[in-house]
């Protein structure tokens, strides 16, 4: 089903009695648990930018609008989407156009990025996608049209349903329109690149960078094998540890120089220019070094100082290919598509007090294991009641995040 507008979508949900697989253009179908549903509903026909107010730093679009269109509109106004959302279609094998099941895969949509709360490298300094969703229109599982938030930057009126729906993977309501905050795009970017550090030294350097007064907006570490897969970094040879600065040209020149001097104790550093920085961080954002890896891909979020231990554990457990973003707080890992490897990831994340997501894996495995950590019983009970509060008949993407929810 591809409703042409919000009213038709609401009619469909009001009349529905069986589970529905909810999606945008289908680029993230390989994420999380597969949904067992006879019917599919796509927001792909709900397109178009509905508000562009650069002076007010907001932009609204219907949920099926390709993200690239929104990025282009923001760029025309000298602005950008703050959370730097990634594009995992290469990683997930969902580059369109192609047909997967009943779905013609297209470019990822603003609805999809919001429903999955996916954020890129800038998340470490400027917040996640959910931090910049200012307003939402959605249809809940009973077919009621619900507005939450609005089009202003500060709004605490009532419960924050915008944040609840962001990252809810279509299990509570189907978003039809999203308003995001945008900010002026930086005039220039530069990256301080340290070479040859081991993971612990790297995270210490990134902590120093993120704890500096220079507004570092990206902090990643790639072992040699991973860096070699990014053309903008391969020439450096060996492991690279990267700290990005984005600002006015004068500030970028000053701050990158100061940062390199402050980090001198960690070794010699190169400074990557604007073009190389763009290319390198786009590759990190999209997990490009892991695209060619067979098997599973996990995203593990831990306190940054725990990143190296998690990486070492997974390397020892199943020879994981890995790199770190968010100053060490986001460990990307690839490994064999089996339950033993998955259990090792879950154990390592749990031991560090963190969380994980099975981002890519064969469908039988994703159906068999917990793809995100199970919630404590008291919280799981609340989750079931909140799900029922939006979707009393349990028709929207059942089992997408947790089995039975």
């Amino acid at each position: 089903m591809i409703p042409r507008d919000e009213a038709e979508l609401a009619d469909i949900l009001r009349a529905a009695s069986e589970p529905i697989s909810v999606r945008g253009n289908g680029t993230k179908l390989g994420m999380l648990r597969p949904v067992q549903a006879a019917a599919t509903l796509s927001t792909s026909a709900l397109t178009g930018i509905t508000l562009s107010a650069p002076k007010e730093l907001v932009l609204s679009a219907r949920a099926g609008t390709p993200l690239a269109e929104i990025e282009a509109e923001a760029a025309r106004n000298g602005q950008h989407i703050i959370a730097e959302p990634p594009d995992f279609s290469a990683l997930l094998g969902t580059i369109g156009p192609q047909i997967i099941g009943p779905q013609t895969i297209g470019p990822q949509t603003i609805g999809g990025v919001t429903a999955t709360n996916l954020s890129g490298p800038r998340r470490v300094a400027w917040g996640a996608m959910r931090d910049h969703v200012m307003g939402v229109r959605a249809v809940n599982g009973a077919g009621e049209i619900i507005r939450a938030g609005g089009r202003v930057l500060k709004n605490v009126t009532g419960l924050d349903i915008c944040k609840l729906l962001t990252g809810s993977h279509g299990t509570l309501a189907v978003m039809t329109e999203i308003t995001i905050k945008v900010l002026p795009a930086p005039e220039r970017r530069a990256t301080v690149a340290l070479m040859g550090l081991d993971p612990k030294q790297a995270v210490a350097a990134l902590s120093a960078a993120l704890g500096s007064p220079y507004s570092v907006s990206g902090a990643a570490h790639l072992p040699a094998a991973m860096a070699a897969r990014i053309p903008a970094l391969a020439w450096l040879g060996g492991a690279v540890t990267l700290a990005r600065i984005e600002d006015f040209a004068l500030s970028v020149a000053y701050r990158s120089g100061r940062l390199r001097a402050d980090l001198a104790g960690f070794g010699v550093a190169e400074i990557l220019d604007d073009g190389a920085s763009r290319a390198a961080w786009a590759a990190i954002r999209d997990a490009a070094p892991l695209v060619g890896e067979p098997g599973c891909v996990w995203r593990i979020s831990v306190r940054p100082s725990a990143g190296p231990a998690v990486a070492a554990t997974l390397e020892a457990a199943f020879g994981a290919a890995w790199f770190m973003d968010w100053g060490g707080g986001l460990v990307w890992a690839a490994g064999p598509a089996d339950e033993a490897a998955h259990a090792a990831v879950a154990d390592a994340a749990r031991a560090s007090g963190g969380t994980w997501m099975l981002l890519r894996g064969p469908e039988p495995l994703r159906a068999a294991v917990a793809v995100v950590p199970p919630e404590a019983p008291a919280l799981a009970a609340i989750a079931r009641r909140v799900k029922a509060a939006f979707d009393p008949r349990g028709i929207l993407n059942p089992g997408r995040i947790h089995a039975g929810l």
Partner: protein
Amino acid sequence: MIAQPVPKAASLAKRDAIVAGLRRLVRDSGVIAEPIRMKTYETDGLAAYRQVPMVVVLPETTEEVARILAFLHQEGVRIVPRGAGTSLSGGALPMEDAVVVGMMRMNRILDIDYDDRCAVVQAGVTNIGITQAVQERGFFYAPDPSSQLACMIGGNVNMNSGGAHCLRYGVTANNLLGLKIVTIEGEVIDIGGAHMDAAGYDWLGLLTGSEGQLAIVTEVTVRILRGPEGARAMLAGFASNEVAGACVDAIISSGIIPVALEFMDKPAIHACEAFAHAGYPLDAEALLIIEVEGSVAEQDHLLGRIKDICREYDPITLRVSESAEESLAIWKGRKGAFGAVGRISPDYLCMDGTIPTGQLPLVLRRIREMSDACGLQVANIFHAGDGNLHPLIMFDANDPDSFHRAEVFGADILKLCVEVGGCLTGEHGVGVEKRDLMGVQFNAAELDQQRRIKSAFDPGWLLNTNKVFPLLHTA
């Protein structure tokens, strides 16, 4: 006056048993049941509303909070969570049949981790207390509400508090990593932690700004940030609100996002200058306080560009602070604005709507017209970059008619905010004050959706019942 719910007769009837029960759960000094001592808790920052609660309990640990909630849940008694009581919307206003759970004894900083840039603090730690604990290393906790000397982080989480620097650093929700909460059944749940972006539903986001409707927050993991190399403020005075508003648009359009961009109208300028002697221009109709950060050279560069933009709008005054003391004085006027207005009027209501910034000239003109029509003065202070208005309506609490007109005036301003595309509250919360206006912003289905979320956490509607949602449930 806004109606209060009918007290539960069953709760009032067993007051002595509730007091005795609470005395078994916390140390003796933690239960306050004498009416004279409970007067301290009868109101908050919305001082026109007062109600002595049934009893006050002051837990010292999460376990005590859990035992208290389990007990009160079993007894079916209503609960009002309270931090420092600085809410401007009546978020901590007690009910006659309710137990106030005051968090002020849970005031310890549990952990500071500079490498991972986070701190774990109990709910009763003050906002400024976090910054003070980390500033020796050059770090700070970003949200800075005007009440930051007194207000507590647990209250900040529940109201999703903002401040003057949100434009750059975000509000409370953008600066949290984790919470420890106690549910109405007395279950302790950890949400998030020192890491970013928990998988599954964004409970952290939902609980932030939930105004005590869903659970009691006992511990908070906050992000701490390294401060900039320096910061400097400048003043720009203009001949009209329209011109100042256009100048704000021009600054944002130029690609510069100052860390703060504050707007005052003439009555606010006069009140604040009389209080702070900051050198505000008394002949200006509108004043912008603009702050930038960075090294001295970066500050000079940005302030130079901003000055060039301001010059296109015929400023009456254009003054860049030359010293840390001067910047401090400039901010003293703004941060003391509420107190300053308090000096010229016996009482005031502080409103908190947000509007799309392009609507500023229209909204200020309409507020002026309303002010003339109802015969009450108003001073406007405004976070200009994000559209968050703070009209201060001056009235005399000894004159019931004056108070009534002030409440009607305030409600009309908030309705206007919604009408032009904004919202009822940008950072103070709905509380009691705006509860009955929720229907202006949300339709019945939307309010019911929010109520069902409340019910998912608190099926018996015992937590802070008389706030946020227009009353349906009576005892």
